[in-house]
């Protein structure tokens, strides 16, 4: 009876190690292919368009409202200490250090990451990936590398956009609505943000680009090997769900780890 449980733990552990190894190898071969010529310019542009350009609107909306709500909440908290003038500091540091990279990555996961997992999952299920292998085309290079490259370029740019729009949102609610002097707000924003904060934010967004793209592509790529034994449409849906959930969780975990090292 008890051996049964021990076996279950053992098999779980073996499976975990095996999939972690598979994941890491997948990631490494994708990264390695970035440096193998020729550069797949056309595909990279396609994916920048998909991951980056098409996410701009979502990022604008989420960034604006995140900034506005930070302005409101920050104001009502700070006003109890009589230091509502520090709103600019609160909004800009929160956005640049944390919310810009994290919420940006989560929004991009929802918009582009899910699509990546589903697209690659369908390619796997309809044997398109096998077809690549028979044509002597490296499928990892074909489906993963351009997405990875495009994401690493797009994530920091979208994060910068999120930060800027968020700071503007804070200005809208803090200055226009609640009447903090706008010069004070902007002065606090400009003077409280340090170079290390900005680099930290960009560093985070680049790490998140790797994390999100790798998890989403990996889930799609191995959508035929899931434990529940789901194939076809079910397999793709499972892959997409897993990709989004795991990406978001990993983004938050990585955020904590990076922050604890940066501070």
């Amino acid at each position, binding site marked *: 009876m008890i051996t049964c449980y021990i076996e279950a733990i053992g098999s779980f552990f073996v499976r975990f190690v095996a999939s972690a190894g598979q994941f890491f190898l997948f990631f490494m071969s994708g990264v390695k292919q970035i440096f193998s010529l020729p550069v797949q310019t056309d595909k990279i542009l396609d994916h920048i368009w998909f991951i980056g350009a098409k996410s701009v609107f979502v990022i604008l909306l989420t960034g604006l409202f995140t900034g506005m709500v930070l302005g409101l909440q920050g104001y009502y908290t700070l006003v109890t200490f009589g230091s509502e003038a520090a709103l600019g500091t609160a909004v800009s540091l929160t956005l640049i250090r944390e919310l810009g990279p994290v919420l940006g990555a989560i929004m991009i996961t929802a918009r582009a990451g899910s699509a990546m997992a589903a*697209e690659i999952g369908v*390619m796997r299920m309809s*044997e*398109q990936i*096998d*077809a690549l292998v*028979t*044509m002597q*085309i490296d499928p990892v290079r*074909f489906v993963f590398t351009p997405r990875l490259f495009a994401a690493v370029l797009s994530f920091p740019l979208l994060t910068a956009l999120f930060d800027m729009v968020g700071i503007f949102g804070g200005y809208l609610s803090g200055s226009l609505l609640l009447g903090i002097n706008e010069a004070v707000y902007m002065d606090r924003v400009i003077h409280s943000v340090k170079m290390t904060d900005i680099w930290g934010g960009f560093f985070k967004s680049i790490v998140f680009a790797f994390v999100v793209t790798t998890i989403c592509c990996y889930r799609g790529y191995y959508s035929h090997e899931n434990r529940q034994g789901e194939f076809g449409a079910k397999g793709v849906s499972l892959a997409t769900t897993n990709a989004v959930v795991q990406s978001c969780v990993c983004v938050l975990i990585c955020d904590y780890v990076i922050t604890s090292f940066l501070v």
Partner: protein
Amino acid sequence: MTTPFIQFKNIKKQFGALEVLKGVNLSIAKGQVTVVIGKSGTGKSVLLKHIVGLIHQDSGQLLIQGEPLDGLSKEKSCRFKNKTSYMFQDNALFDFLTVYDNIALPLKETSKIADAALQQKVHARMKQLGIDGIDNKYPSELSGGMRKRVALARALVTDPEVILFDEPTTGLDPIRKKNVHTMIKAYQKQFGFTAVIVSHDIPQIFDLAQHIALLDEGIILFEGSGQDILHSKIPGVQAFIQGKSSMEHE
């Protein structure tokens, strides 16, 4: 006797608890059309996938011109795989690429061919197969027969020496089926490639086949020419042929 081009030697393959191939021995001669028949789900596609390396055997050897495929130098196995095309049962066309890009892909990704030459080559193939003028359509906009021909064009565009057909006629009407058969026959004559066809079209396929293998219960039950199989006394062979021909469109 000359060494066969591709030879399966006691190949075994198991998926989980399911034993699919239980020791397959099969020789495929160069420049010939070999047809593999057998009940659905007996592992015919699995057999084909071994040749292109999509599936690796649990035991046994796959010989290419007498040398084991696993033991070949990287260069040699690359050369063999470059000269091999695989036509999937469900075509496996890239649904996010246009017809032209689909056909051009194998050349574009694996060689440094100039755009003009590539275009000429792709259009030549499309014309030969009667699918010219649909460059910018997507596979999902085409009929089943057209898709098959696009897949065939993609398989032929690299000028392969070996083409593996996994049920090239499923989902086609009898006339189209015959067309595909004539087409394969004509191109095989014209280009002299080695063809391995997995098929259910008994007995029409016998016309085309120079060599027939019957796969049953994980082993090769019969190997020989089209005439031989009709007069074979091996138990099960006649039953299979008769049974299949009465429910051909299964």
